[in-house]
């Protein structure tokens, strides 16, 4: 079943919605504005009645997988349950209706929530201050690197390089480059962990920072983290923590204690704010005291029992987004932390690690395991053992979709061929984990008996595999002026000269 586009359902004579009349004396735009300031043709928005609109979106909703219905074993995404209480909290008029430019004394509750969230995150990751301004993980990552750059600059040190492991997520080098740094890759050793020898050879007075995820993108704890921190600090560089995998060890250990100077977090991963089909999220960044002067401005401070926005921060890297952050997501995360508490967050990470190791055990004979266990909250398997049957990680992913599971992450990290990265999280029951393990077994068995069947999957979804190459070629043709079909938007069928 597919659904028509709103533009295709649109009919010219549908009534517009009823809206208030002006009810006061005053000019209309055409009365006072010069003609060339006015729009000459109305925008081609669709015209639909409300019943049609609601049905259209309900039908679209039914074409989606979502955490509310499906298990998402996506590595490094921490697709855990999104508590409905968080939604109720964020919708409270006392939060939702606040204008960001209200006087501070009229938004003390909002400022206090931000202050308390900052305190809580400091406690979880072991840092001195946290900025809540960044709107997403990559945004937070860039913010952290800018602070690190400002720090070195303030000490008149010209450090131009950032070290990034070869197993890192693409945002790491992208953020580093956008912060004005040259990216140098550090190799992983044979066990998937960063190679200390290679790290040593690449650390220099030019190094501004080393960016690390811990556990790494293979789900393995960097055992030598204390040595790594010492090596990095000895050269005067800083250690940055990518918080994608923070769900592995809340209450067990803290990045701040490991020696990380800047600690990034994803509220839409570890702290349950919902993914929304791609966003919004929030990417707070924790820092040790020496980076605090460079935090984005304003910060929230408590002074004489009042909460204030501190704009007077002369060394701040400035503003990284408008207003104060994705406040609605901060409310959600704060609500979650209140409900979980220190005891709940600790148990969550323990269960996350337990579930990942359990699931790994269930599938360890069906898929290749490139690294020895135990893993932390996620593990990486490889479909390389199915290579001879002509079956790839992509086929396994699509076959899982057909069985009602969202696919795990595939082809990442790049250091493992035919990688399948699985993170179950703590909110999936054993029954779900068992059925996923069973599905893997069936798919792997089918790889031997009917590989073509796997290539044809998914068969039970609204569409099968889409021809992205043909789409890319049509886009190319459009961008070069050889075709009128934009591909990236709907366009009315040609009607001749307008």
């Amino acid at each position, binding site marked *: 079943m597919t659904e028509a586009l709103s533009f295709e359902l649109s009919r010219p004579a549908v009534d517009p919605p009823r809206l208030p009349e002006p009810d006061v004396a005053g000019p209309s735009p055409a009365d006072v504005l010069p003609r060339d300031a006015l729009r000459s043709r109305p925008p081609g928005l669709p015209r639909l009645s409300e019943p049609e609109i609601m049905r259209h979106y309900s039908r679209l909703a039914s074409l989606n997988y979502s955490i509310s219905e499906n298990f998402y074993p996506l590595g490094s995404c921490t697709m855990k349950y999104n508590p409905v209480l968080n939604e109720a909290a964020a919708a409270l008029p006392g939060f939702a209706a606040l204008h960001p430019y209200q006087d501070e004394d009229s938004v003390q509750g909002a400022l206090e929530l931000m202050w308390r969230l900052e305190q809580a995150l400091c406690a979880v990751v072991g840092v001195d201050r946290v900025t809540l301004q960044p709107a997403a993980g990559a945004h937070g990552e860039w913010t952290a690197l800018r602070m690190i750059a400002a720090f070195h600059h303030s000490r008149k040190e010209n450090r131009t390089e950032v070290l990034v492991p070869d197993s890192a997520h693409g945002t790491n080098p992208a953020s580093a480059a956008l912060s004005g740094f040259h990216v140098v890759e550090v190799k992983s050793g044979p066990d998937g962990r960063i190679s200390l020898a290679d790290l040593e050879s690449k650390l220099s007075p030019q190094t501004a920072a080393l960016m690390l995820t811990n556990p790494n993108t293979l789900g393995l704890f960097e055992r030598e983290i204390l040595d790594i921190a010492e090596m990095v600090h000895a050269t005067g560089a800083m250690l940055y923590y990518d918080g994608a995998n923070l769900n592995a060890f809340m209450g067990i250990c803290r990045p701040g204690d490991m020696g990380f100077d800047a600690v990034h977090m994803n509220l839409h991963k570890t702290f349950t704010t919902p993914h929304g089909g791609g966003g919004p999220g929030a990417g707070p960044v924790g820092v040790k005291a020496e980076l605090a002067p460079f935090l984005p401005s304003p910060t929230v401070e408590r002074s004489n029992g009042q909460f204030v926005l501190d704009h007077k921060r002369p060394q701040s890297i400035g503003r990284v987004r408008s207003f104060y952050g994705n406040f609605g997501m901060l409310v959600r995360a704060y609500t979650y932390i209140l409900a979980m508490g220190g005891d709940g967050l600790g148990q969550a990470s323990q269960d996350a690690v337990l579930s990942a190791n359990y699931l790994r055990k269930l599938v360890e004979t069906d898929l290749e395991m490139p690294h020895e266990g135990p893993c932390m909250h996620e593990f990486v398997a490889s479909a390389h053992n199915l290579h001879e049957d002509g079956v790839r990680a992509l086929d396994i992913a699509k076959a899982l979709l057909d069985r009602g599971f969202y696919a795990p992450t595939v*082809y990442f990290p790049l250091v493992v061929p035919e990688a399948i990265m699985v993170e179950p999280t703590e909110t999936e029951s054993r029954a779900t984990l068992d059925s996923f393990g069973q599905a893997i077994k069936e798919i792997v068995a089918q790889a031997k008996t009917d590989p073509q069947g796997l290539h044809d999957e998914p068969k039970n979804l609204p569409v099968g595999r889409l021809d*992205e*190459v043909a789409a*890319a*070629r049509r886009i*190319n*043709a459009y961008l*070069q002026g*050889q075709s009128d079909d934009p591909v990236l938007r709907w366009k009315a069928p040609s009607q001749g000269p307008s």
Partner: protein
Amino acid sequence: MADRRYTKTHEWVTVDGKHATIGITDFAQSQLGDVVFLELPAAGRKLAARETFGVIESVKAASDLYAPVAGRITEVNEKLASKPELINSDPYGDGWILKLEVAGELPPDLPDLMDESDYKKVTEAAAS
């Protein structure tokens, strides 16, 4: 000398006196998948050996292109703008990417570049 030579980054080059033709290898195109777009420089630009001169994109990947030898670009394969798939179907023929007028003298055996058999070893090692 018209034998093809190869780089570690999977470009090939043939040299004919002062003129070189450059493309990517069959191994590279098979790794990349269906090529959908190339970002290429204009004719006239000078390239140093091993300088990146463009990007080749498939739906799922993007790779930098590196000049095997130094020279000035004399011709860019115009057909690739509308038919990038030529690189997949004929990487050594119609899928050529650039022609260069080589800078200075090239040593006759192009020691920085691999011959067919050495390159084959590289691709076999990578594929396993």
